[in-house]
């Protein structure tokens, strides 16, 4: 067993002539709470896609619990305990919330290869799904179709599915994106209360959330790791202010 839940070594990737990941090194210890920040277009979501296998890196390695998973498929990585949420909801919109969860649990346990028994005959699966929904206060919505839920609730389903995978490593891509601030606290509470055994990498723009939640921060700029450190170190770093916070300020100025 490796001491790291997830390691990324020398990851390279380019969209045509545009390099989007340049020699990225990153590691998550067991139970880590790391935030990934950076200006728009820095390659944060691309990095998540490279780690989860949506994209194949042109060079470099991804290790899960010390095992090289660079060549494995997305689904294989998920089965080995690597889960993610999406910046834009990727849900089974025409199915009920409960089915979204039951199917996830079924795929996790290999149950979905069964063509014969009825999906409702394993009470344990349904109960586990309801437990997950309970913890996110979604039980009352469990028989609604996902597409009938308000966006904030859908965002919670997005997280509930990832949690139902029982991951060891969880990548959260802007979990509160697009949710009105009156509801986003609910999502951030859920994130704050995640199982301490799960190693979490969170992409987030809200600096309050980042500094409250993360124990380490990685700053990504133009596809490369700009710097890493504790929240205090990052906050004190003048270069980060110039590159990241400065740019935000510039944007704000332009809008005003």
């Amino acid at each position, binding site marked *: 067993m490796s001491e790291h839940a997830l390691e990324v070594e020398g990851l390279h990737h380019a969209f045509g002539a545009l390099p989007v990941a340049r020699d990225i090194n990153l590691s998550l210890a067991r139970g880590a709470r790391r935030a990934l920040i950076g200006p728009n277009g820095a390659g944060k979501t691309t990095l998540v896609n490279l780690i989860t296998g949506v994209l194949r890196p042109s060079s470099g390695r991804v290790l899960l619990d010390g095992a090289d998973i660079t060549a494995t498929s*997305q689904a294989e990585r998920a089965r080995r305990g690597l889960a993610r949420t999406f910046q834009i909801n990727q849900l089974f919109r025409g199915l009920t919330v409960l089915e979204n969860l039951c199917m996830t649990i079924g*795929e996790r346990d290999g149950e979905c290869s*069964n*063509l014969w028994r009825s999906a409702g*005959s394993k009470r344990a699966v349904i*109960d586990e799904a309801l437990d997950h929904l309970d913890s996110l206060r979604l*039980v009352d919505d*469990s028989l609604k179709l996902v597409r009938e839920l308000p966006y904030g609730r859908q965002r919670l389903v997005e997280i509930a*599915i990832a949690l139902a995978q029982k991951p060891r490593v969880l990548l959260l891509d802007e979990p509160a994106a697009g949710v009105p601030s009156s509801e986003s606290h609910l999502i951030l509470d859920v994130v704050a209360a995640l199982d301490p055994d799960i190693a979490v990498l969170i992409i987030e723009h809200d600096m309050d959330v980042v500094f409250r939640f993360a124990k380490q921060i990685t700053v990504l700029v133009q596809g490369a790791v700009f710097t890493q450190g504790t929240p205090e170190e990052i906050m004190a770093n003048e270069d980060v202010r110039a590159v990241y916070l400065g740019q935000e300020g510039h944007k704000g100025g332009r809008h005003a």
Partner: protein
Amino acid sequence: MAASETKSSERIAARERAAEYLVSRHRFQWPEALPWLLAIAAFFIFPDRMTFGGQVLIWVMFALSLDLILGYAGIVTLGHAAFFGIGAYTVGLLIARLSWSEPLSSLVAAALMAALIGFISGWFLLRYLGLTLLMLTLATAIMLQETGNLRPDISGGYDGLPGLTIAPLFGKFYYDLYGHVNYLYVLGVLAIVFYLVRRIVYSPFGQALTGIRENVRRMHAIGSPVHRRLVTVYTIAAAIAGVAGALFTQTNAYVTLTVFDFDNSAKVMVMLILGGTGRLYGAFVGAVVYMVLEDYFSKLSPTFWQFGIGLLLVLAVLFARRGLLGLVEDAGRTFSKREKS
């Protein structure tokens, strides 16, 4: 204290309601008996139309197989006639070239052949999506048709294999001129096939298929072996379409290469969409309505009957986007809402 107790008991009740839905969803409901009762009633009401009735049931089965892949897994195909044709020709060739005319074992052979072709073509094609898949499935059916055309010494070419003699059913029942035996034979096979499809649809595997239909990206992300699931269901659907094709040859006692026609792939899709996809009974409604109207219109006007079918489709697209069953569901919902208020 008391407030929190009622709250937790409310929560338990909500959990129980939710669980009950999934636990009981697959159970048999009485309205489901309706199509079968109607099929049996038709046998007694229209004794002289049973040849036609048998053909309708064959199309129901064909549409049902398409529902598995189109309605549940979301695979869009324009080449489903390929498997109907494979089944039809398996039976035809067994009789004409190998003198094997026992009907039930021929059905099994047809199912296996169609499954084999479904497995092989599905393995390659189901990596693709949308328009690409549409074209590739279409090409597969045409290629199979032309393969038959290439060896007329075996397949009979475009003249097909006429005048096939099928051995009596169970070695006992000879086929009457009115198609009574055939009708009951097809109805029996359809009932078995329907039972299998119904089991699959309500199984965890069936759930995973709907997941692939709703969001294939997320399916990959939760660890689903999507390709394997799709190839599995494609193979099963091919086998069922093969059985439908086999029954077509057996009940008509001839087969020609037109079974592979694009027309058939399109017709079965139109039927299913007309009835309603992803609903099991959409195949019944769609096939029956389509076939009966086709029969009616072609008697009304032998030259312009397609106009009627076209008009029906335009109306369906305008007013019943989710098929006739969708229309019934909507009507039921409006009705129950009114009752409540």
